[in-house]
């Protein structure tokens, strides 16, 4: 027993007045490493112990402001950078609507941050190895008496003197507290490693089951197995066997303007004028549309070399003199109303898109039948 290291000498007091008095005397005596243990906060003890005011308020402020900043900057990033999306005609950074979440996160950050730093940084908890634990002293201090504990670390400490001092203050149950024998931590024992392995297997198994199996069982899979018709798929629901439906006969789009010169291609050639310029943007658009809608039959370069490998009659080349000499309006008429086997592309291509395709076709024609000056220019 005697070779144990001394931690402190403690004494108990029974009234709040006596413990306040004891704290004042301890300060007077000059002890620095001492503590008061009480079952509840005793008013006036902070000033009796001459403690500095708590700084937890600054922590709360700092954590709270962090929450504010995180919330606002994150929402700004989502709404303006990650996925800009206009909601309800409000600006993309609608501050009043962001205040509720900003406020909540401010409180959340402040509360969690303050409490965690209090318990684990300030109090250095969990602290179950303190020698005071499991002594009669602490059992009284968390229940019905007020304790004064003067630690051996203190410069002025001397066991006998402190005991006299405590007795002089009227303390009861004065005793010396020793450090307990320190055992090594049993982390690397066999049982603990087996426990870790087992929990790893259980956790990963559960995660695998939930994400790969459970989510595909009834009722979780009910959204996957719906009675619906996929695009392009046949269906016997309708007489014609098609799954996809055309618009009802006579349906007119909202901004519909009737096409002129229906049966008179030559007038179309005479009167319709291409409104678009030969710009890069127009040609890019024309190229995209041409590749999508025209090139399957007309070929990538409009040479009449279909990409359909004979599944549909090949149209003639567009580089013929006839087509090169057609006015834009004439080609427009073909796209709009179709010609021979070619159907109308009015539904697929808007007016501007049709003119853009024509411009692109013109540029192809020019590429395959260049003029003299084109060569000069390229030099």
């Amino acid at each position, binding site marked *: 027993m005697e070779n144990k290291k001394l931690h402190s000498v403690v004494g108990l007091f029974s009234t*709040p007045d006596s413990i306040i008095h004891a704290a004042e005397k301890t300060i007077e005596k000059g002890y620095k490493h001492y503590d008061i243990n009480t079952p509840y*906060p005793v008013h006036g003890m902070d000033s009796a112990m001459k403690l500095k005011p708590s700084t937890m308020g600054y922590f709360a402020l700092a954590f709270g402001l962090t929450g504010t900043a995180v919330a606002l900057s994150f929402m700004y990033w989502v709404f303006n950078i990650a996925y800009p999306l206009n909601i309800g005609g409000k600006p993309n950074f609608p501050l009043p609507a962001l205040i509720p979440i900003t406020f909540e996160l401010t*409180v959340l950050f402040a*509360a969690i941050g*303050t409490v965690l730093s209090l318990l684990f940084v300030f109090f250095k908890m969990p*602290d179950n190895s303190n020698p005071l634990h499991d002594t009669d002293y602490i059992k009284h201090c968390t229940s019905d008496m007020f304790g004064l504990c003067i630690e051996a670390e203190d410069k002025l400490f001397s066991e006998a003197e402190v005991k006299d001092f405590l007795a002089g203050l009227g303390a009861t149950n004065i005793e010396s507290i020793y450090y307990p024998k320190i055992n090594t931590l049993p982390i690397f024992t066999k049982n603990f490693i087996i426990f870790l392995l087992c929990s790893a297997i259980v956790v990963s198994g559960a995660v695998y089951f939930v994400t790969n199996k459970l989510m595909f069982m*009834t009722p979780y899979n009910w959204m996957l197995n719906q009675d619906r018709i996929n695009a392009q798929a046949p269906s016997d629901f309708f007489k014609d066997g098609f799954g996809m439906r055309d618009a009802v006969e006579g349906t007119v789009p909202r901004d519909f303007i009737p096409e002129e010169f229906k049966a008179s291609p030559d007038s179309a050639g005479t009167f319709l004028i291409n409104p678009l310029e030969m710009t890069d943007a127009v040609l890019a658009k024309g190229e995209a549309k041409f590749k999508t809608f025209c090139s399957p039959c007309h070929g990538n370069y409009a040479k009449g070399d279909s990409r359909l490998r004979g599944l549909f009659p090949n149209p003639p080349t567009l580089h013929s003199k006839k087509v090169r000499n057609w006015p834009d309006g004439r080609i427009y008429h073909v796209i709009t109303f179709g010609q021979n086997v070619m159907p109308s592309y009015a539904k697929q291509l808007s007016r501007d898109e049709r003119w853009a395709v024509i411009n692109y076709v013109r540029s192809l024609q020019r590429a395959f039948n260049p003029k003299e000056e084109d060569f000069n220019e390229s030099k």
Partner: protein
Amino acid sequence: MQTDYTVETSVVEGNPSFKQIDELIGAPLETLPNRNFLIAISITASMLLTGAIALGFSLYYGIGMWGNNNPVGWGFDIVNFVFWVGIGHAGTLISAILFLFRQKWRTGIARFAEGMTIFAVMTAGLFPALHTGRPWLDHYLIPHPNDHSLWVNFTSPLLWDVFAVSTYFIVSAIFWYVGLIPDFANLRDRTKNKIKKIVYTITSFGWRGSNRHWQNYEMVYLILAGFATPLVLSVHTIVSFDFAVSIIPGWHTTIFPPYFVAGAVFSGFAMVQNCLILLRKVFHYEHIITLDTLEKMNKIIIVTGSMVGYAYAMEFFIAWYSGNSAEAFTFVNRAFGDYAWAYWIMVSCNVIFPQLFWIKKLRRSIPVMLVIGILVNVGMWFERFVITVTSLSRDFLPSSWAYYKPTLVDGGLLIGSFGLFFTLLLIFTKTMPVVSIAEIKAVLPGAQPTHHKAESNNGK
């Protein structure tokens, strides 16, 4: 009896010693459950089971099992959600707001009320989670990087709810736990049972009651109370935004935020008061949770009840004053339309019956306050019903008007929510100290040092 205003009435009667407090509050944790407890928990567990069955139906067949129809897309689910969140508010009000106001009478009831807050918010949280229809996909409510590049709509009040309710739950739980640490230390040093000793040792983090700790602890408790106060206001404010930012007549009105908060506190206090009446009887806490405390709670009930009444009147008046015909129709329809029965239950329970508390005798009579407390909760449930259902069932398009009728599954979930709440509460009373041991000791007579020796001498 003539009240003497010159002395402060102690919040604890009979001047018990610290040891007696320990034993009294520790008693339920150290004895096995008795017959009454088992009867009570079997009732609540059966209610919970009813709810579980209804929940099973809702999950397996989908929320088509509920009575919600086309215009009335919010039925019992949202009514129950708002009701239970409201119940939770009283707990935070008692533990945080009354703490800031230094109302000592809160000491005996704060822990229990905080517990109720946590369980009420847990119960409430179930409903919006279920209401999404596929609750196993609810993780999308929390913004996280995902392979659809989907982010949540931060401007939606429904998302604000997600943040508000989860923040509220977390902060309440932290607040509650911080308060429990010294009590766990007390239990740790009292218990003779080995397993309990280990549990309490872990949960108390090695608390020693050091005054160096108490100082920061009290500061943090104050800060937490300071944060919890606006937080509790914000939660029901945001719940009210769910309704009020829309343009549905009867929903879009600017008084909703304070009105909802007052209503929440109102119903919450009624619930806490009811539970406390039973608790003090069963555990013999009559001298800790005194009749004075209950009377004060009744006063708060009458204040908040009158605020709710003020809001009803204001809404009605402005519905007329605004000159907006849809708005005026909605209010006339509430009072005299299909749901008039619900409306008048609401008005009588919320505004008329609590007025009985103006009479001191009734305010201090246990049976009367028990009945009025129950009526207030009935009334407040119907208030949410009236707001949610009447406005939706008669919206702008008369061709789509419809009457909402709840189904058995709806009823099962409502019963189940009560079952869940009370089951948790019963378990709480047997596993944790329902009165804060440290705080109640601090307000016992003679527990604090005498500040001014000279004055106290001629004072006493």
